[in-house]
């Protein structure tokens, strides 16, 4: 018989507090390398100037322990819970929210959540958006993703007609990035979710943003080819860093897919600004 493994709610809270603070101060090596490479390759003088400032900012943020961006995000949490895990000493959801609350208070991160109608700030950056999946095993993987509002606003979902097919998907994604223009702080990452249902295409798009930067979809060569095609199309637009013109409008396009209804072709584009932050831990 498989043994239940206990993880305390307090550990969940502490882990998420540390992950959200760390994510806001320093990006992954993959992003740092991609931005450095972009600064070398960009042909527009203003574009290069922007990319150099972005690199300088990463140094300052690290040295002074300051958030890379004042928009320290909506707190998105992906939790992959092994089915042998038993959370003890508290409620899992509450433990997650407490971790976010502590991170944003103790880390001097901006509280950016409000009531949608009164626009009154909730005061502690909660509630986080939590996606929990139950998976085999006795581990708990927690991913903290602070998601900025400016790039989230430029994201879009569409229920395409199946006849539009691959060409329709490519056109939809490129059009979304074109329409977003300078607003989402390019150079961006483009996460695309295809299939499932309306909301699942959005979850897939967001998960696609978590993949190591620039790695192609490993499960489906058709997606890997579309990722390359869309990236080329997007970088022909000329929007460039901050929309000041140039070649580097997107650093990568990541796509994820699952089957959908015979009547449907849901496609969601989730845009991520150049401050692409996420950190994970396995308990």
């Amino acid at each position, binding site marked *: 018989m498989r043994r239940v493994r206990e993880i305390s709610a307090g550990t969940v809270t502490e882990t998420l507090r540390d992950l959200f603070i760390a994510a806001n101060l320093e990006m992954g090596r993959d992003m740092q390398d991609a931005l450095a490479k972009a600064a070398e390759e960009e042909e*527009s*003088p*203003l574009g290069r*100037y*922007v990319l150099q*400032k*972005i690199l*300088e*900012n990463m140094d*300052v*943020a690290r040295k*002074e322990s*300051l*958030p*890379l*961006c*004042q*928009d*320290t995000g909506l707190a998105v949490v992906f939790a992959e819970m092994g089915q042998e895990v038993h959370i003890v000493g508290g409620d899992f959801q509450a433990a997650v929210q407490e971790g976010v609350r502590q991170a944003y208070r103790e880390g*001097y*991160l*901006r*509280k*950016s959540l409000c009531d949608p109608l009164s*626009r009154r*700030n909730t*005061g502690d950056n909660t509630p986080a958006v939590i996606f929990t999946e139950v998976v085999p095993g006795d581990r708990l993987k927690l991913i903290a993703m602070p998601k900025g*509002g*400016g790039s989230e*606003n430029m994201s879009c979902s569409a229920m395409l007609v199946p006849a539009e097919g691959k060409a329709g998907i490519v056109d939809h994604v490129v059009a979304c990035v074109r329409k977003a*223009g*300078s*607003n*989402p*702080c390019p150079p961006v990452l483009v996460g695309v979710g295809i299939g499932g249902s309306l909301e699942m295409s959005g979850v897939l798009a967001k998960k696609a943003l978590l993949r190591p930067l620039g790695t192609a979809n490993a499960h489906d060569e058709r997606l890997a080819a579309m990722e390359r095609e869309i990236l080329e*199309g997007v970088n*022909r*637009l*000329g*929007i*460039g860093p*901050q*929309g*000041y*013109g*140039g*070649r580097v409008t997107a650093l990568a396009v990541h796509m994820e897919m699952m089957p959908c209804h015979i009547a449907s072709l849901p496609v969601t584009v989730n845009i991520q*600004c*150049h*401050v692409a932050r996420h950190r994970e831990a396995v308990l």
Partner: protein
Amino acid sequence: MTSEPIRLETPLNDELCERLSVGDRVLLSGVLYTGRDAAHHRLCDAAVRGEPLPFPVQGAVIFYAGPAPAKPGAVTGSIGPTTSYRMDPFAPRLMALGLKGMIGKGRRSPEVVSAMKQYKAVYFGAIGGIAALTARCIRESAVVAYEDLGPEAIFRLVVFELPLVVINDTKGRDLYDEALKTYSRT
């Protein structure tokens, strides 16, 4: 892109604004006021009611920004621009009252661009996502209105050589349009 940035001090006036052109790099010093979504609602509600605004708007420059909290002993937390189009419904009214400059990121509406021509005002781009670096330009920061809005309160900032780029000038030109003309290959 001009090789040497132009040094400017607030408050701005017609003459200073008319000297600026699309794509100019500017180092701006002096007093700025932050204001974003909720603050703009309140400012314009006050203007409609004929009430005085909580800061002198004549010649003023608004920074569309909501800073992260300052650590103890620090002047400010990380600070940078938010996307400007959300303030478009309010901007012409503020320009009519004397607002001369706006700092943000992203495209403005045709109404805002034409109001900039009419009132001789300028829209500057600050780089988004370099907020730790930008914080170094802030010399003073204090809330002057709407403290209950938290990060959306109006802060009076004293800045030194804040690096900006002119996006829309007083002639109705637009850096984003001109950049696309130069770099688009579609």
